[in-house]
């Protein structure tokens, strides 16, 4: 049985249908990256899978007693709320100092427990959120654009960390990415979302791609990958618009028409 599976899921924001007929399943230990343009419903999908947003149609099935670790897109902590990283880890369930130290070491924040949350940098904050999620010993880790605001090096380092966590704990990873083309190389599957599932496939590791090396240097150590979109399923028939799926590298148009054949 899948850890979590959505079948024909529809989600509405008021009168607007944000997600239409989404079917996907997350298996034990796999890494799935969801990509899509702004407003394509990526965050909505995660929030629906978490049960924060109600499904307007379809259903979501979870393995009994499934433990989900969630890393939100951003956590704005105002300076008016004084809270240290160590205290943050004990929310909502108090954890021992030993457990807190171990998880901070795991995410590369060793000895930072006394820092105020409001004073953390973007990269530190993402690691802090990851550390808190890991304390629940999740079977599924859901991350919403965890590398937003990080530079290429920071992004690669964070992806390597996720990969290590998966290798150590065997938890499945469902990650939303803002980048349509560059994804985590360790992704088993990439799902391209634009209100519905446009296409799905494996990423192609970019560490050897000369164009990519020329662009970003050698520092990612294979943590990043290119994803080639294959939008040749039948929501726009090939005779209607032969150029709609003609993608050229970074000039990804995403303007496929949404004609759905019954």
């Amino acid at each position, binding site marked *: 049985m899948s850890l979590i599976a959505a079948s024909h899921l529809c989600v509405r924001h008021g009168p607007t249908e944000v997600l239409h007929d989404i079917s996907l399943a997350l298996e034990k230990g796999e890494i799935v990256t969801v990509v899509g343009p702004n407003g394509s419903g990526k965050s909505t999908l995660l929030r629906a899978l978490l049960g924060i947003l109600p499904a307007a149609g379809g259903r979501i099935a979870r393995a009994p007693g499934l433990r989900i670790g969630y890393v939100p897109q951003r956590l704005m902590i105002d300076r008016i709320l004084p809270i240290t990283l160590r*205290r943050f880890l004990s929310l909502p369930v108090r954890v021992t100092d030993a457990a807190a130290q171990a998880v901070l070491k795991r995410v590369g924040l060793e000895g930072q427990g006394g820092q105020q949350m409001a004073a953390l940098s973007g990269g530190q904050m993402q690691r802090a959120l990851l550390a808190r999620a890991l304390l629940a010993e999740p079977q599924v880790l859901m991350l919403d654009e965890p590398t937003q605001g990080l530079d290429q090096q920071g992004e690669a380092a964070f992806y390597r960390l996720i990969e290590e966590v998966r290798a150590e704990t065997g938890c499945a990873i469902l990650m939303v990415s803002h980048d349509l083309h560059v994804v985590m190389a360790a992704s088993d599957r990439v799902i391209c979302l634009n209100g519905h599932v446009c296409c799905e496939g494996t990423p192609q590791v970019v560490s050897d791609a000369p164009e990519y090396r020329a662009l970003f240097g050698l520092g990612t150590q294979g943590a990043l990958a290119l994803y080639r979109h294959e939008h040749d399923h039948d929501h726009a028939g090939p005779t209607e618009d032969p150029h709609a799926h003609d993608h050229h590298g970074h000039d990804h148009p995403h303007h496929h028409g949404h004609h759905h054949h019954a």
Partner: protein
Amino acid sequence: MTITAMTILTTTGTIIMLDDFLVRAALAGVGLALATGPLGAFVVWRRMAYFGDATAHAAILGVALALATSLPITLGTLVVALAMALTVAGLAARGWAMDTVLGVLAHSALAFGLVAISFFPAVRNDLSSYLFGDILAVSRLDLALIWGGAALVLGLIAWRWQALLTATLNEDLAHASGLNPARERLVLVLALALTVAVALKIVGALLIAAMLIIPAAAARGLARSPEAMALGAVVLGAASSLAGLQLSLWQDTPAGPSIIVAAAAFFAASAVLGRLRGTV
């Protein structure tokens, strides 16, 4: 406090009565601080300042309602404050522009309350005690209500502390942890209505929100953890009550505003101290 009591005692010569009302007033102020400290911290963290104002102003309408129906003032205040808090929370959940909604509701509640009270000539002269509090006239029954209400608020917040804190940081995070952020909001709404009912006699409807916000904000400068800030708000709130009471006795100033003046002075001192120590 005994020194103050003695001073006044020598000037007026009515020993037991004076001592008694001063002790009652001091106890009332400390009781109020027990509730406003931790609740005020959440009001500050969650940016509910105007929410507090709207709920507090509704208390005046509650007074009018209680007078009209011959119910106890505290009960009328509690019911109307709760109705207002639930209305505002419900509108917020539906995505209304809160700034405008609160502006309309807070001031309308106050205006309706003042108009309604004017129909009771007996209370008309007494109006300022509802607007600014009348801590020196606190009775034994008042004291029991204040401490009972404060204990309820304190118990409610202590019981939900971890969940409230998680939901305050991020509602999605709380949801993913199996908590229900809507329920935690309701806990705060309930605590707020109770606090308003408790605080009306002490600082008055106009300054209840100030009693929530100022001690908590003052405690921020001295705290490095949420627990320390809530505790600091209790201590500073109690100190403000006692200092305000002193000021009120010495200068014959209205008690409620005097308490807030003291709180504001603590805030200024804490801001300077926090800056020096680098905690803010």
